[in-house]
């Protein structure tokens, strides 16, 4: 628990890799991963004589991010060089934006009328990746020069839980805006957190600590909770918090100061002379706004209107853009939004969790799930069969009708054929029949179960019920 006598102040810095097929300042093809040092050209290698040429598509995506987060788009912006030496920074400087960022201000909705304010969003190039081994250090420059936006939050979050919500919502909005996949595991979203404590009512901010190596939103929350406790203990015992960068260790559940990081490094920023200042006419911003993909709030309102779903369903379905799109296709395809919602929320999401995959990688397409639900709704298969079918389709590239045939799941709905089965069951269960006539309703359940069993579960249950009543009440057992 936080010591109640302190107020927590948190500011987040989020790096998001733009969803682009090429790099920020070079036409080099880009996708995450790949054999080390295969996705890099002379430009990102920083060889003598090379120059950056701005990828206009990156500017467009960054502006789209700004608009989705309610930032103001700068009319005239420029790039700056941040100078420092490191082997994964081939030119010895990073091209970024210092005093004229692309987007100023903005906010992330945290729910219930709360917002996390943004200071700025700017474009910058990624560095390569260093890895350190006993035998030495290795550098992979595939990522060098990839297009990033850095989203700098204001230090106005007040709890680790708020920080968690900020990140969840930010990711959701950027995914919906099709700015980035925001996949922390693939490194397309990275987060550093600054945290300080102060006495409630204090105007001055306390000494802040920067937390790094936060590889999931849950880790961000855990690391902030730990740091909150640590700083409270330091301050509570009359000590002073050291301004430092700390690395989070998830296994040990604690952070430790990062070695060798100079807090006072001078990056000798100056305007990038290889790139002329960029003018962004308001018409360009308007065109980007007009082409904005549907954002989460708009889609939620539309789903509520079109599908009449409860709030709980909307929360679950809209969390991930691809899941929402998947659901929408299923709902339209089967014409039963609530049935579609139930199946997506339970079966689909459970499967994704079990397999750790994304809905876009699911072999069972939304169109096929819709077809499956149509079969269920039309009574051609029952619910148990539908579940077997669902599991089968996850691993087999088959149309629904093909899978039904392959599994022999066609429901018995032919009244004449089914009547023969029911008659046979009644003939074999005279005691139960007698019980029924003696007024014991439970006997009907037993007879129903026997009939289903006799058909291997394929009988249309409603039809069985109907036939049982008809035959029992008519007393016709011939």
């Amino acid at each position: 628990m936080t010591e109640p006598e302190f107020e927590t102040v948190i500011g987040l810095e989020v790096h998001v890799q733009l969803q682009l097929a090429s790099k920020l300042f070079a036409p080099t093809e880009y996708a995450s991963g790949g054999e080390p040092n295969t996705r890099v050209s002379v430009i990102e290698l920083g060889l003598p004589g090379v120059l950056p040429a701005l990828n206009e598509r990156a500017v467009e995506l960054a502006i789209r991010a700004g608009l989705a987060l309610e930032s103001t788009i700068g009319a005239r912006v420029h790039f700056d060089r941040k100078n420092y030496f490191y082997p994964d920074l081939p030119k010895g400087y990073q091209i970024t934006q210092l005093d004229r960022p692309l987007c100023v201000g903005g906010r992330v909705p945290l729910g219930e009328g709360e917002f996390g304010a943004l200071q700025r969003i700017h474009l910058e190039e990624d560095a390569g990746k260093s890895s350190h081994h006993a035998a030495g250090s290795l550098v992979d420059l595939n990522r060098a020069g990839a297009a990033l936006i850095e989203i700098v939050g204001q230090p106005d979050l007040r709890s680790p839980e708020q920080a968690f919500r900020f990140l969840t919502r930010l990711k959701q909005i950027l995914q919906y805006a099709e700015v980035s996949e925001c996949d922390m595991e693939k490194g397309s979203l990275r987060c550093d957190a600054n945290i300080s404590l102060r006495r409630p009512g204090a105007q001055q901010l306390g000494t802040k600590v920067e937390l790094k190596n936060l590889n999931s939103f849950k880790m961000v929350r855990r690391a902030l909770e730990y740091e909150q406790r640590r700083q409270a203990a330091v301050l509570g015992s009359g000590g002073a918090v050291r301004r430092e960068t700390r690395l989070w260790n998830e296994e040990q559940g604690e952070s430790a100061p990062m070695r060798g990081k100079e807090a006072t490094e001078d990056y000798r920023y100056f305007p990038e002379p290889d790139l002329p200042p960029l003018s962004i006419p308001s018409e360009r911003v308007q065109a980007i706004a007009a082409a904005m993909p549907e954002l989460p709030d708009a889609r939620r309102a539309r789903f509520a209107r079109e599908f009449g779903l409860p709030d709980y369903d909307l929360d679950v379905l809209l969390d991930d853009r691809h899941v929402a799109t998947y659901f929408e296709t299923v709902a339209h395809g089967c014409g039963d939004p609530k049935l579609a919602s139930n199946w997506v929320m339970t079966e689909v999401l459970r499967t994704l969790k079990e397999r750790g995959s994304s809905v876009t990688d699911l072999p069972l397409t939304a169109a096929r799930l819709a077809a499956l639900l149509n079969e269920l709704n039309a009574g051609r298969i029952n619910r148990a069969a539908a579940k077997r079918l669902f599991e089968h389709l996850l691993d087999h590239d088959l149309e629904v009708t093909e899978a039904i045939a392959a599994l022999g799941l066609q429901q018995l709905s032919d009244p004449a054929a089914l009547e023969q089965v029911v008659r046979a069951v009644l003939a074999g269960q005279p005691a139960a029949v007698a019980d029924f006539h003696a007024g014991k309703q439970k006997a009907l359940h037993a007879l129903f179960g026997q009939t289903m069993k006799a058909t291997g579960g394929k009988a249309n249950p409603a039809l069985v019920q109907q036939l049982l009543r008809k035959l029992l009440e008519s007393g016709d057992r011939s």
Partner: protein
Amino acid sequence: MSAADGTARATAAAVADGSLRAVDVVEASLERIAAREPQVGAFVEVFADAARRRAEQLDAERRKGSPPGPLAGVPIAIKDNLLLRGHRTSCGSRILDGFTAPYTATAVQRLLDAGAVPIGRTNMDEFGMGSSTEHSCFGPTRNPFDPACIPGGSSGGSAAAVAARMVAIALGSDTGGSIRQPAAMCGVAGLKPTYGRVSRFGLVAYASSLDTVGACATDLGDLALVTRVMSGVDPRDATSLDHAVADFDAPPSSLEGMRIGVPSEYFAEGLDPAVEQAVRAALDTLAAAGAEPVAVSLPHTEFAIPAYYLIATAEASSNLARYDGVRFGARSGGDADLEEMYTRTRTEHFGAEVQRRILLGCFGLQRGHAEQWYGKALAVRTLIRDELAAVFARCDALATPTSPVVAFALGDRLTDPLAMYLCDTLTVPASLAGIPALSVPCGFSTAGLPIGLQLMAPPLGEPTLLRIGTAFQSATDFHRREPAP
């Protein structure tokens, strides 16, 4: 007639119509280089075999009927800071030991496409930092007019190669005067184009906001041609100008009605009287050709040198950070820790002048001082640009000395960086303003050392400069005087 005599245009025309073979042109140039090089030392490498092979290929293509380019078979010397795929690029620096260019600079590629034959790479001050071509790991180049003297710099190798008639055209780069000043000191013409006129892609950066690619030649028609061929927008250089490139080659014409400004600040203290006398006489020649000299004032000229050295060194400190021993070039202390490898690599392989400028640049950009130094230099740069623009509202061009002094003896200023920096006093304003400037030979000192006349024009005013230069050369013969072998 030897093939290397005459203009590049005459050579290209003869190669095109088959009256001259490219292989013979190249052979003549190689012979000339072999004869003069021991005394001059203009080249750090001669591409003899590659040039012969390319000439054979050009001849074969012509026989097959492919249309020859405007520079067909013309040998061109390339300053050692422009990349040519498959060849070494050194920038006069040990830090590029072992570096082979994996791609070709846009400007060089355009010359190749026009049929030119790269004949070798020329000596330069390390990374373009110098005004004498003494700061090269390959040793100095000597002035063809007096081997005891410097050729100017940093494109000293290129200017000397043209002056010694080893080639008709040599490429250079000009950041603060590095084409114009050696051209003046070697008695040849040198054109620094408008900033952005020629792509910088593949030019090893010294100071990005000032660097330009240009050429030296004896004939202004050749200079116009080579500059036109290299010009034009390049998607790989965001600062390249998307402006139609007119034919720069101006036929000799009268200068009637042309107003040529003469800024008094360029004739100030420190100007060699012989230079002043020659330039004043040149102004009379221009007046006789119909131009109207106009006295003008550019009061901020005296701040150009400090502004230039702050901006150029700031950009250089960043541009040269990539020479860290990690990916290419020289490395020292590879077994040591990272910090030590960086330090040893850069300390052991950069020359003293480069290290001095990197330190100056870092100083000017350091936190807390950037506004006072770098920021103020940018403000001065704007003042100088505006001041020049205002003058160009009243005149078509400016005429000044190119260098305040003629070529000095080797070693004379080597230990006095400030004296060396002052060589650039008259050339840096055009660099800061990004405007085109041309140096043409306009006389000789009593010791027989060449003097240059600098002409400046507003942005994209290359045709104006070449028109004035051509009129001047049709009335004079300084450009025809060859150094004694």
